[in-house]
């Protein structure tokens, strides 16, 4: 997949959209507590009314069971269950459960069921510490109920309805818990997939960003950064340097689009001839050839010139044309970062100094189109066709093409 085909990360959501508002975690706990209190209420009321024949034997406990989930939700419902204060209601559950166990007897099926689900809840929510605290509250509930004399005589042995109810509740409760766990596992799976997709997307984005950073650098420097993880200064003994300048004739300031078209095409041509653009300033471009020869530089200049002579870029008015002027030097040069935080690269050395001087000739000699330093001329395999101009005042000695001022 080419970088261009990248898309934003895929969000994983296999749950079909629904118009129902999902419960908040506090809401879910509230519902669970209501179910819990209804179960205890039903078992206690059944035992008192149908087995013992005293329907209001523990009327006050029934009232507490009916009220406490709602009151608790009003008072503590907004607290986070993951914090200690948020677990107060779980301890109240223990007190209520303890009271129920004290009433029904500790070896009763319903009591064992209530104790089991309380211990399970505590273990799930708070681990061993909450189990210990919860068990204490359970014991406290039993103690308070015993001290208050609320313990009823045992139910007749032939009254098995509370046991059946407890069994039924246990089965229902287990089914609900299993369903909840199943959904939780599914959600965890989806969450994991989403996380994985997000992690892949981040990794991909990181690779793209690295690629973009490396692409923005001159190719040689980019290679260095990619291979060694840092940019170090290096000396190139036989570098060829070009300083290009694009003018519009008749003279005027170029617009950004025109500069863009010029730089884009010039860059592609220069790369093919073994050069890399180091930096640009307006219509000027500093170009380095690590292994390219002065002839390669002249060939690149010729091709750029021919390209724009054949294809006038958009933004030029009728009668206008682009004029390429260039200085060429050759020799030892040192390239490296001068401001690492901005990835600002700079060139220095004899060849760079000679290039700057040669570029000065272009400013002083309007008809000059290509200026070659003596060192670059000495490196040329076919040096004929260039005329030597000795140093003259502030102008350094240099070579220019024999015919007219153009490189061709």
């Amino acid at each position, binding site marked *: *997949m*080419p*970088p*261009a*085909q*990248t*898309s*934003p*990360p*895929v969000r*994983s959501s*296999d749950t079909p959209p629904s118009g129902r508002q999902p419960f908040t975690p506090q809401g879910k706990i509230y519902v669970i507590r209501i179910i819990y209190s209804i179960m205890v209420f039903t078992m206690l009321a059944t035992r008192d009314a149908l087995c013992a024949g005293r329907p209001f034997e523990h009327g006050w406990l029934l009232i507490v069971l009916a009220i406490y989930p709602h009151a608790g939700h009003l008072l503590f419902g907004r607290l986070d269950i993951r914090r200690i204060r948020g677990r107060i209601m779980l301890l109240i559950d223990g007190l209520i459960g303890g009271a129920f166990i004290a009433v029904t007897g500790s070896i009763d099926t319903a009591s064992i069921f209530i104790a089991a689900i309380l211990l399970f809840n505590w273990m799930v929510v708070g681990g061993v510490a909450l189990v210990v605290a919860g068990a204490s509250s359970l014991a406290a509930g039993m103690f308070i109920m015993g001290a208050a004399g609320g313990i009823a005589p045992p139910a007749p042995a032939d009254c098995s309805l509370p046991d059946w109810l407890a069994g039924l509740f246990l089965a229902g409760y287990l089914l609900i818990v299993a369903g909840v766990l199943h959904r939780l596992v599914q959600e965890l799976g989806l969450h994991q*997939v989403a996380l*994985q*997709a997000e992690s*892949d*997307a981040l990794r*991909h*984005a990181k*690779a*793209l*960003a690295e*690629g*973009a950073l*490396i*692409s*923005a650098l001159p*190719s040689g420097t980019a290679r260095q950064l990619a291979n060694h993880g840092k940019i170090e200064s290096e000396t190139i003994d036989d570098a060829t340097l070009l300083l290009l300048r694009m003018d519009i004739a008749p003279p005027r300031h170029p617009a950004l689009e025109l500069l863009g078209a010029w730089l*884009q*095409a010039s860059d*592609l*041509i220069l*790369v*093919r001839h073994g050069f890399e653009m180091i930096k640009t300033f307006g219509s000027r471009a500093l170009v380095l050839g690590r292994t390219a020869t002065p002839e390669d530089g002249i060939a690149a200049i010729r*091709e750029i010139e*021919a*390209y724009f002579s*054949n*294809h006038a870029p*958009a933004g030029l008015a009728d009668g206008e044309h682009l004029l390429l002027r260039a200085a060429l030097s050759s020799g030892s040069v040192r390239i490296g970062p001068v401001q690492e935080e901005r990835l600002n690269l700079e060139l220095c050395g004899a060849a760079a100094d000679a290039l700057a001087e040669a570029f000065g000739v272009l400013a002083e000699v309007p008809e000059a189109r290509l200026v070659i330093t003596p060192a670059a001329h000495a490196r040329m395999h076919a040096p004929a066709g260039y005329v030597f101009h000795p140093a003259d005042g502030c102008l350094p000695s240099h070579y220019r093409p024999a015919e007219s001022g153009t490189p061709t």
Partner: protein
Amino acid sequence: MTMTDRPPTYLQAYAETLFWAIERLCGTLDEESLSQLIGKISLRHLVNGEILYRQGDRGDEMHVVLSGRLQVRVMSPEGTERIVAHPQPGDIVGEMAVFSGSERAATICAIRDTMLGTIGRQDIEALAARFPQVFSNVTRMIVRRLTGASGHIARRSGLRSIMLIRLHRGDATEEFAVRLRMSLLRYGSVLHLDAATASRRFGSEQWQDYGRHLDICEDEHDFLLLEADAESTPWNRVCLAHADKILLIAEAACGPALTPTEQQMLSAPPRTSPADLILVHPSGAMPRNTRNWLVRRNIGRHHHVRRNADSDIERVARAISGQSVSLVLAGGGARGFAHLGVIRALGEAGIPIDAVGGASFGALAATGIARGLSDAESLEEQRRAFTLEDPLGDYTLPILSLVRGDHLERVLEQHLPMDIEDLWLPFFAVSSNLTTSQVNVHDSGPLWRAIRASVSLPAILPPSLQNGHLLIDGGVLNNLPVDVMRERIRGPVIAVDLAIGGDDHAEHRSIPGVLDYLKSRLMPGKQAIEAPTVSRVILQVTTMASRREARNARRLADLYLNPPLGSHDFLDWSSMRQIADIGYRHALPRIRDWLREQPQLKDPAGFIRALQTRMAA
């Protein structure tokens, strides 16, 4: 031999080319011998599309290409024809049959108006008797050509003159032409001419001289873009005679009807190579009903291009310059998720993919990238398809097959409702034809039907019945169809194989019992025994016939990847992420190493564009 020697008048226009060719053939000749030889050369003109000779013909003449361009096509024993070269001025053709006395080894025709210098067998024999070096030079030439070391086979990608015909004269097609010119600069120097610029450049000479001027321009530039006039003009006729390839540029939104320009073009003599069609789509549009465009025209290839999308235009530039990067993906069931990891690695390394194809699950994986999906989107789509929709879940009595296949067809039809012609990238899938025992290449028509045929693993799924032919899994005959890609697309090919027995070959010392095998897998602390499981054996049996092809494919591929997926079987759908990750980790360092030798393949601007797209999203 010097350039001052004057050939006869009728050859003077081609003197330089002729001298160069003779020097290659005979070495340096004295003036008398040279003039004798030149006197034996006669001119022969071929019009665009004319055949010089056919494969199997008797060879009595040898030819020097003086101007224009030829195409060399070779018919394989299987009956498929391949373009192997484009001889151009200075190249010599036909010498092999003349010197060996054998039949012509290839068919040669002109792909533009071409002038040849022709020498008969008797003259050549007389020449060779006088200058024995001719034998050694010709032998060297033939050997080089056969090994592809040089000669016109090495320059087979040489499409140099491209005629641009804008079927619609809107901004979109004009922009495309300008951007294409810019994109081609990456591969060579470009000259873009229309009638007005040609007239300014060549002066007001006769139109018949324009061909010679264009030859000169072609010598000076790597690519000539010749933009046609909207009306039928002499300039258009010059372009038609000179162009190696015609690009028809159309705005997809304008509808597929033939334009007046095309109707005038159709009245011209038929060309050897059909035109390519560029469909420029508005931003955000998806290709639709491309078939309607293709049935009305003689089109070789078509390219879908989004307006202002540089990446699409660069794809066309790579196709023209013979630098298209193709990806071929092998079949291997769930092991094919590794392809998605490889695709991600290619993206991260900055390698664009210009064409895709594959067999079986490889073809399915290729559909994602051909539709323009990222690897993440492809993976998510396939995760949903294979985990939620369970396409292979409709088990049946194992008489015809293990799975009924109806569910798979529904899932494929739902996810891949488009035609292959409407995909962003050139695409093909291969299947094995039980009726003809040949490989079927699906490169047009409904995508889901192509994939259904390509993934029909014998015994697991019933064969797919298409046009009276029973088609089964492409992996049975050609599991890694690099050869099919090579025939279609010019440029480097990356092949991803999933062969068991590659890097992850497991040594079997004995076949364990079922209980021992299960114990080793299930009991903690025991080392897992490697054994040829049923699924592995089925996979190996179905791809066994194509193993030899795969070895050939490995040789044909420029980059061959075979991720080590030892522990993952071809039905291991649940491990898609792990498998994709293995593919990614295996591919990334190898791709980066390969890229160091092929820096021109990297698309540096692609990273910036991808980041911009991502941030905009």
